């Protein structure tokens, strides 16, 4: 254990911080934060990061990255969140879709799709969830029907973020009927602009709109298959497993807790609330260590599903608790939204309360994580 950053990590973090601390970026962030529940287009911040090669640091240079490591990727996530920059487009495009393409994409797919993302000029979405299949992909109903040398995709996907702005998305569809529910699923790279794709908002409690995406027989070809036909389950499991470090959740917990600490002194709090913040601060610090342990594992080429599940579970639960405890300790003003003239810090804690419920659901629910820990970690539930 040596928690000091390497000189490279230090330098990368400093560079990102310097950019995110500029007046332009601060102004754009503030503007987003004071319009809760609404969303504009792509952020300039992403383009600024992209220009400097900071947005996809761990991607190879040929695809617009900087050839740095997984640690730098984690640092970027931490800094985006610490500075209040909405991170979902980054997580989806760079961390999930980018990772999927790097692992499973053909050279052609990578050269076509990755550079615009790395430049911050394009975002990509993920179309896995369906009305009756949330964590349970085996229940997928979207069908890919054979059509000559390609397929036609039909189905309804829900709760996807950024698909209203995205050029394409990873989409899981059933290519083959099978007794085994996780066989016969294929992951496609589906373009989202053509006719045959309808994107409708599902407004929700958070600042990021969800979409319902209806695919009405849109045509895709072998060119659009990611990985192997019928083996999408493996692709999805691998991607979601590798992406599951808890890094973004602990960073959010840190931001919210710091917002409360900044706005209160120990004296201004009910003593029991001050005590709770000390305990939660310890939980957040532990969440960061659990997350970085996963980053270490990835860096070392290990991947440990139990450690990943622990990191995600802990960061998600801690983050949700922090949002409620920190806003509770900071008083009623903490519940004022970013567009109220008296809001605290552009409504950071009000937004936290709305974002918090997603933390125990996204990237694998707490129950799914506990199932992994209990079974693979403790040998129970078998």
């Amino acid at each position, binding site marked *: 254990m040596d928690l000091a950053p390497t000189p490279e990590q230090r330098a990368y973090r400093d560079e990102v911080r310097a950019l995110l601390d500029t007046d332009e970026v601060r102004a754009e962030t503030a503007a987003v934060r004071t319009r*809760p*529940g*609404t969303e504009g287009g792509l952020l300039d911040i992403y383009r600024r990061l992209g220009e400097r090669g900071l947005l996809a640091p761990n991607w190879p240079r040929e695809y617009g990255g900087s050839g740095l490591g997984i640690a730098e990727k984690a640092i970027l996530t931490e800094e985006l969140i610490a500075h209040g920059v909405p991170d979902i487009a980054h997580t989806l495009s760079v961390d999930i879709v980018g990772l999927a393409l790097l692992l499973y994409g053909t050279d052609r797919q990578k050269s076509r799709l990755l550079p615009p993302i790395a430049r911050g000029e394009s975002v990509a979405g993920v179309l896995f*969830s369906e*009305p*009756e299949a*949330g*964590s*349970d992909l*085996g*229940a997928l109903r979207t069908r890919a029907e054979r059509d000559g040398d390609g397929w036609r995709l039909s189905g309804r996907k*829900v*709760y996807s973020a950024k698909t209203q702005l995205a050029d394409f998305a990873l989409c899981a569809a059933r290519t083959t009927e099978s007794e085994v*529910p996780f066989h016969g699923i294929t992951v496609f790279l589906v373009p989202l602009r053509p006719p045959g794709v309808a994107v409708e*908002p*599902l*407004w*929700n*409690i*958070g600042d990021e709109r*969800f979409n319902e995406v209806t695919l009405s027989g849109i045509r895709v070809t072998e060119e659009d298959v990611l990985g192997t036909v019928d083996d999408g389950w493996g692709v999805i499991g691998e991607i979601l497993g590798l992406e599951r470090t808890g890094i973004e959740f602990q960073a959010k917990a840190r931001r919210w807790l710091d917002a409360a600490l900044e706005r209160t002194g120990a004296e201004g709090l*009910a*003593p*029991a*609330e001050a005590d*709770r913040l000390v305990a939660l601060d310890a939980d957040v610090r532990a969440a960061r260590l659990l997350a970085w342990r996963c980053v270490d594992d990835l860096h070392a080429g290990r991947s440990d599903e139990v450690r990943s599940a622990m990191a995600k579970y802990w960061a998600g639960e801690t983050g*949700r608790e922090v949002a*409620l405890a920190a*806003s*509770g*300790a900071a*008083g*009623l*003003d903490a*519940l*004022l*939204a*970013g*567009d*109220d003239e*008296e*809001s605290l810090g552009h409504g950071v804690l*009000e937004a936290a*309360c*709305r974002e918090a*419920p*997603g933390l*125990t*659901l996204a990237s694998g*629910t*707490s*129950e799914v994580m*506990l199932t992994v820990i209990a079974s693979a970690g403790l040998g129970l539930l078998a």
Partner: protein
Amino acid sequence: MDVTLAAEHQELREQVTEILGDELAPLIRRMADRPRHGAAPDDAEIRALVWQALTGMGALGLNQSPAPGDRRGLRGLAVLAERLGEVLYQGPLLDTVLASEALLRCAPDPGRERLLKEIAEGASVAAAVRDGGVRPYDAPLAAGATGDTVGAERRFVGFAAEADWLLVPGRTADGVHRTALVRRDQPGVHLRRHEELGRGELYAVRLADAPVTFWLTPEGDAETAWHELIASARTLQAAYLVGLARGALRLGADRLKERRQFGGALAKQQAPAFQLARLATRVDAAHLLTQQAAWEGDTGRDHRLTAGQALAMAATLAQDTGRDVLHLHGAHGMTDASDAQLFYRRATVESRVLGSPARVRADVMPLLWERGPAD
């Protein structure tokens, strides 16, 4: 020692349940919710309807002419408040009955009688007391030089824009506790709606030389009277939050019964079933403690400690239930279409408007060590 609800309170509960019945309940839940997307629903009609129904059944008179032995009518009001919480009713009802209690603690006086009558007939009052502190009577208040106007700033005042009256307690610069009743439509009354998590009807209220209709002066020790009034407010808010938790719990149980995952009904899974069973137990526990606070108030006992404990317990419970039930709904629960997020947001706001649980407990803490043995 009789822990069961009295027959008249059971009847009252059934009556309220009928009024807020299955047809109206989904509409009531959405009352005073202003979604960020799409047009705000025009719920003026339903609000008026519910108010009339509640007034018609005598809700506003429950503490004006309580049953024999009920000094304050708190038990009946707590039964009512619990049902209101269950359907997420939002409106000035609880503030209004608290204003009645404040008036009833004053010496008889023609002005007082007129106001009580007006309330019993349906006038509403917003209590301009919510500044996030647990001792609102310590908030600053300026009485005009002639004594017939008041200046004050209050925040998170519910339904200030539609109430007929504002009740404004506070302390003047020279340390005197005073409470004014001010007509909302008078000059000098300035309102601004908060943008906040609940997306409801909470207002910043600024009174600048606003004309005072009635200064409330409690009989007996004013300090004690205000403490007890706060205890009554806490009791009713606790009851409201118990109801809110009960409503959220039902939503959660229904959801588990509907939802299938990994090939089985979620309702069969032990972990979420136990989670809801724990919450159900806490709902009953908080309900009973709230009723105890009401009983203490109704029988002239000191209900400050119990009311504070009941509020802290109910607030934590409502927050936890809102959070857990939203989680059990998955992503669907977070959409505007789902009531799960509505319960969660309301629970978060309502569990704090009279002070966070820890602050409320800190406020009543000394009373625990002073308490005598139970019967």
